[in-house]
């Protein structure tokens, strides 16, 4: 089966390539594939009907319940025969019918046949869903054609939206079914159907999918609209194949779920309503294809009701009607195509005298219409007899669940079916009094090529009717799966005088009479209250959705960042807040403090933070932010995290320095708060509420810990990493991969800063930058000129005006700089054993350079660093990555640590750890980032015009650059 489906796909992919050379012949090639499928199915028929269903199985994602399982049982076989038989006929027909775009049309139709084959053989709900949606996609492409007219596009879009919407509901239902039953295998699900729980809801959802796909009231509007598609598409998709998918699914699930509420009432109500209303609407259409389209809605309603009723006899009737409908409706569509081909129209009002001129076509149409109307000896008659008998007996012996109403609906539907069959036949072929015969062009042998597939389909409807034992053999095995509430019905052309026959005859006579009374009926129709037009309500829904979306967007998308954040925070407050309130474990009173020193630290932190929120001077704000950071570092220390405290202190210092450096280029005060008092109160209340929520969450979370911490593993195995400091071991060894990623982020951030600050504003922005020249720049007169510093200590400082120099700082820097660097290296290498490490070491070194920067300006940094910061940064990342990868070269895992020990003459025994190399990479990178940031901050305080972009390295500014290094 998989091979056949793949063959459909492969040939379909080839056809557009072949089309430019082969022209029409591609249709013949395409038709061969379903023909081969038909032959294959025929060959398998005896064994499948004996109950031996071949299964093909391929794993896909079995853990998710996703598997490709194809299974060919009796029902699948029946559908396969229909899909491939009608498919082959339509493709043969298409060769003569289609006049352009052979490659696209034939390929899509063939792909569609393949998808349908997959759909009817899939034995997994999710796989079935995939094929189900693929039919939707292909049908969208087929209906849209090349999307030339708005009508085509809208019809295609409507079909897509409606059936996909139903499909989504169905998917939800499938998942609910599959999860309740514990299996997604359809065969297992039907054999042992789950009960209770989600099952009723799941069935309703699945049936919504069925009703949209099979165009049932009130979701049918897309099918008549889709009649803009070419006849081949209508015949195949909208009569024989795609719309049958819903019927197929009903039939597939009925053996398992027909007795589960609310399956039967839902299916019968919708199906029978569609039967009657569809047939009624068909009477009033003047476009032949739309007559057939409403007829299809009606027939599909009948089929869904028959299969959904879920008894042996009704299923048998359903199967026969399925076969009948596939053959006669496809032939009628194809005949309509031929009529249109001959006359250029399919409007009933413009057709006249066609029957007399085309007797063969008339005969074929009459046979197909007779099958539709249920006349013997055609297969349609067998079906009508079967369901009349079934429901007559159900009404007589039934449970009293309204079977009489069903019978009445069936008789009415049959009568109306006869009426629209006559309407179609007369409309297309009759000679109208007082009307010239419609002019025809002579299509020559093309008509013959189109008539042959029609004849084949009509022959099928005739043969299946006459050879009713064959029809029963094909349909009996599936029907036998369903409970035979009454004596099993057998197909026959003549059962003797029976109630079913009487009903059938009555329906025929009533149907013909109704056709005679059409004018009177029209008056009834005009007077009766009109059912809401499905098409109009679809459009109204669509527009309503558009408008609602627009209104929603207008209200929610106001373009204001504070508003968006307010919404986010309110959500945070409401959702986790509700969860917090609803939890069952009560709060236990927490201890006041874990360590008394927390109280003064907390007071400092909170005071600084609250003041930070209120100050208007940028510098004060920066200092207060620093105070918060230092206070938090103290809290870290209390918590038992010296590494963290160290890093926090270092980072805070560096942040403070850099912010202050940048602040020199910005106005001294933050902008005034322009928000309304009401808004400000709202913000205040909201942030206070979120803060309270976080505090409560923290208390709740700390009380909710049940399992031991995962880090016990790290603590126990820290010696294996050659370390004593567990935190450092985690950073450079246990979770070194994370660290690698993190230093990469740092690198990217530093590059970003460099680009943002050093990049020239550009000529086009001259106006903008002139307008926005930072006023603070004027306060820094050009104070220094310097050449290339070579060998003197702090050369820049000497070139500054004396009043700008800080002698004490210069001296202290001179003394401290080397010592700090040595200390940073010490931190790096001792980090493995006690607090420290690459981050801390790198930051300490960064502080040393910051100190020099403050004293000597930017060029001094370039001098002190010697190397380009970019090189240092890159080298750090490369070193860390290499150290991580190196073990792989020796057959170890990446980022693994080795512990070589050496004995050196002077130092004695040394235990080393290779993770120190990794840490050194981190160290270098952090230094590089610090240098890069300092280098970037130099120009940050002068207007762009006065700072031409540094030509080469970022650390080598042009001579005219002002140092402006004092943040006073």
């Amino acid at each position, binding site marked *: 089966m998989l091979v056949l489906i793949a063959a459909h796909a492969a040939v379909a992919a080839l056809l557009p390539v072949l089309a430019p050379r082969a022209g029409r012949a591609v249709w013949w090639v395409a038709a061969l594939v379903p023909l081969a499928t038909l032959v294959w199915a025929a060959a398998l028929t005896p064994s499948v009907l004996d109950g031996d269903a071949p299964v093909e199985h391929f794993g896909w994602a079995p853990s998710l319940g996703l598997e490709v399982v194809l299974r060919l049982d009796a029902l699948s076989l029946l559908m396969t025969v229909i899909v491939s038989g009608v498919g082959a006929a339509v493709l043969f027909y298409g060769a003569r019918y289609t006049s352009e775009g052979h490659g696209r049309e034939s390929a899509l139709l063939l792909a569609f046949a393949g998808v349908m084959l997959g759909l009817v053989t899939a034995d997994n709900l999710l796989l079935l869903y995939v094929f189900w949606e693929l039919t939707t996609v292909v049908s969208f492409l087929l209906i849209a054609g090349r999307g030339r007219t708005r009508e085509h596009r809208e019809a295609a879009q409507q079909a897509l939206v409606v059936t996909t919407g139903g499909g989504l509901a169905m998917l939800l239902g499938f998942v609910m079914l599959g999860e309740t039953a514990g299996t997604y295998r359809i065969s297992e699900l039907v054999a042992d159907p789950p009960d209770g729980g989600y099952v009723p809801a799941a069935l309703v959802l699945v049936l919504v999918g069925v009703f949209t796909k099979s165009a049932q009231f009130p979701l049918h509007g897309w099918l008549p609209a889709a009649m803009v598609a070419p006849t081949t598409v209508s015949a195949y998709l909208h009569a024989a194949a795609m719309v049958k998918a819903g019927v197929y699914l009903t039939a597939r699930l009925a053996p398992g779920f027909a007795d589960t509420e609310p399956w039967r009432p839902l299916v019968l109500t919708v199906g029978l309503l569609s039967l009657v209303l569809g047939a009624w609407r068909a009477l009033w259409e003047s476009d032949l294809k739309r007559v057939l389209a409403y007829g299809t809605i009606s027939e599909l309603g009948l089929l869904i009701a028959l299969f959904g009723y879920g008894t042996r006899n009704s299923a048998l009737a359903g199967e026969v009607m399925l076969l009948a409908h596939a053959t006669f409706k496809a032939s009628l569509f194809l005949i309509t195509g031929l009529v249109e081909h001959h006359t250029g129209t399919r409007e009933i009002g413009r057709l006249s005298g066609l029957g007399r001129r085309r007797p063969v076509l008339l005969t074929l149409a009459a046979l197909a219409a007779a099958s539709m109307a249920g006349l013997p000896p055609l297969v349609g008659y067998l079906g009508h007899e079967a369901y009349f008998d079934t429901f007559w007996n159900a009404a007589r012996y039934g449970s009293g669940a309204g079977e009489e109403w069903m019978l009445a609906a069936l008789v009415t539907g049959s009568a109306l079916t006869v009426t629209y069959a006559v309407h179609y036949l007369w409309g297309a072929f009759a000679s109208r009094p007082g009307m010239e015969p419609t002019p025809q062009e002579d299509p020559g042998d093309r008509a013959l090529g189109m008539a042959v597939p029609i004849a084949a389909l009509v022959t099928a409807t005739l043969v299946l009717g006459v050879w009713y034992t064959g029809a029963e053999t094909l349909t009996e095995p599936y029907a036998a799966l369903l409970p035979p509430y009454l004596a099993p019905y057998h197909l026959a052309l003549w059962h003797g005088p029976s109630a079913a026959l009487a009903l059938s005859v009555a329906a025929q006579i009533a149907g013909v009479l109704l056709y005679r009374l059409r004018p009177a009926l029209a008056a009834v129709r005009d007077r009766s209250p009109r059912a809401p037009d499905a098409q109009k309500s679809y459009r109204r829904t669509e527009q309503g959705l*558009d408008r609602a979306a627009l209104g929603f*967007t207008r209200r929610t998308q106001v373009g204001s960042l504070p508003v968006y954040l307010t919404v986010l925070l309110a959500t945070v407050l409401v959702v986790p807040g509700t969860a917090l309130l609803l939890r069952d474990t009560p709060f236990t009173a927490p201890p006041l403090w*874990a360590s008394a020193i927390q109280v003064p630290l907390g007071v400092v932190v909170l005071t600084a933070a609250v003041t930070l929120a209120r100050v208007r001077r940028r510098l004060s704000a920066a200092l207060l932010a620093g105070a918060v950071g230092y206070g938090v570092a103290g809290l870290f220390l209390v918590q038992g995290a010296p590494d963290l405290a160290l890093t926090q202190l270092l980072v805070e210092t560096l942040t403070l320095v850099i912010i202050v450096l*940048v602040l020199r280029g910005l106005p001294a005060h933050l902008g005034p708060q322009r928000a309304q008092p009401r808004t400000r109160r709202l913000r205040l209340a909201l942030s206070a509420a*979120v803060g309270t929520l976080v505090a409560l969450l923290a208390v709740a979370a700390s009380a909710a810990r049940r399992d031991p911490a995962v880090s016990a593993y790290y603590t126990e195995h820290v010696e294996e990493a050659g370390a004593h400091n567990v935190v450092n071991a985690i950073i450079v060894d246990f979770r070194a991969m994370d660290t690698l990623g*993190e230093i990469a982020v740092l690198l990217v951030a530093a590059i970003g800063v460099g680009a943002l600050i050093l990049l020239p504003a550009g000529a086009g922005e001259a106006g903008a930058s002139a307008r926005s020249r930072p006023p603070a720049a004027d306060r820094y007169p050009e104070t220094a000129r310097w050449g290339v510093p070579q060998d003197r200590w702090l050369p820049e400082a000497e070139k500054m005006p004396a009043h700008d120099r800080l002698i004490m700082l210069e001296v202290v820097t001179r003394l401290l700089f080397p010592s700090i660097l040595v200390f940073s290296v010490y931190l790096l290498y001792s980090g493995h054993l006690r607090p420290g490490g690459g981050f801390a070491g790198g930051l300490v070194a960064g502080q040393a350079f910051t100190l020099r920067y403050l004293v000597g300006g930017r060029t001094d940094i370039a001098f002190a660093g010697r190397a380009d910061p970019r090189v240092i940064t890159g080298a750090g990342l490369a070193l860390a990555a290499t150290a991580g990868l190196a073990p792989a070269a020796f057959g170890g895992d990446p980022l693994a640590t080795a512990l070589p020990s050496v004995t050196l003459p002077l130092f004695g025994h040394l235990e080393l750890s290779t993770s120190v190399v990794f840490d050194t990479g981190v160290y270098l990178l952090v230094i590089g980032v610090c240098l890069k940031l300092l280098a970037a901050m130099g120009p940050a305080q002068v207007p762009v015009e006065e700072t031409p972009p540094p030509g080469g390295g970022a650390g080598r500014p042009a001579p005219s650059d002002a140092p402006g290094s004092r943040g006073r």
Partner: protein
Amino acid sequence: MTTLDLTSAVVVGGLFAVGFHLLLQRSLMRLLFGFLVLGHSTNLLVLLAAGPPGRPPVTGHGQDRASFADPLPQAMALTAIVITFGISILLLALVYRGWLLLGHDEVRDDVEDRRLGESEHPRRPGDVAGQQEGASGRTTGETPGKGEER
């Protein structure tokens, strides 16, 4: 059992409140400070959630390892501190750049964002042109520097 003490909870909650309050302002610099404060408070929260204070997790002195503070949140917070530093400085650079190019450091309303909701025919973008004037008239009046940033 609740292991978090009241003082720490109040500090964390207070820091979050201040951080979000700053984040709700329109001044980019205040946003930056809000970001910094939120960084601190989140690191503190991660650390506090690990349990009550313990001894520094450094072995080798014959200490009882059960009395250690949880080292994993410390390692996470440590890298988080460094990354917060990098990102804050990047934000700072953005503030500076914005100041340089636009002459202000405020988050103005996004006019483009607003226009989306004001077009009559959302499916046909060609029709939006006629709506633009009405749209920009209702906003803060300042055109954002979208076209200037390249």
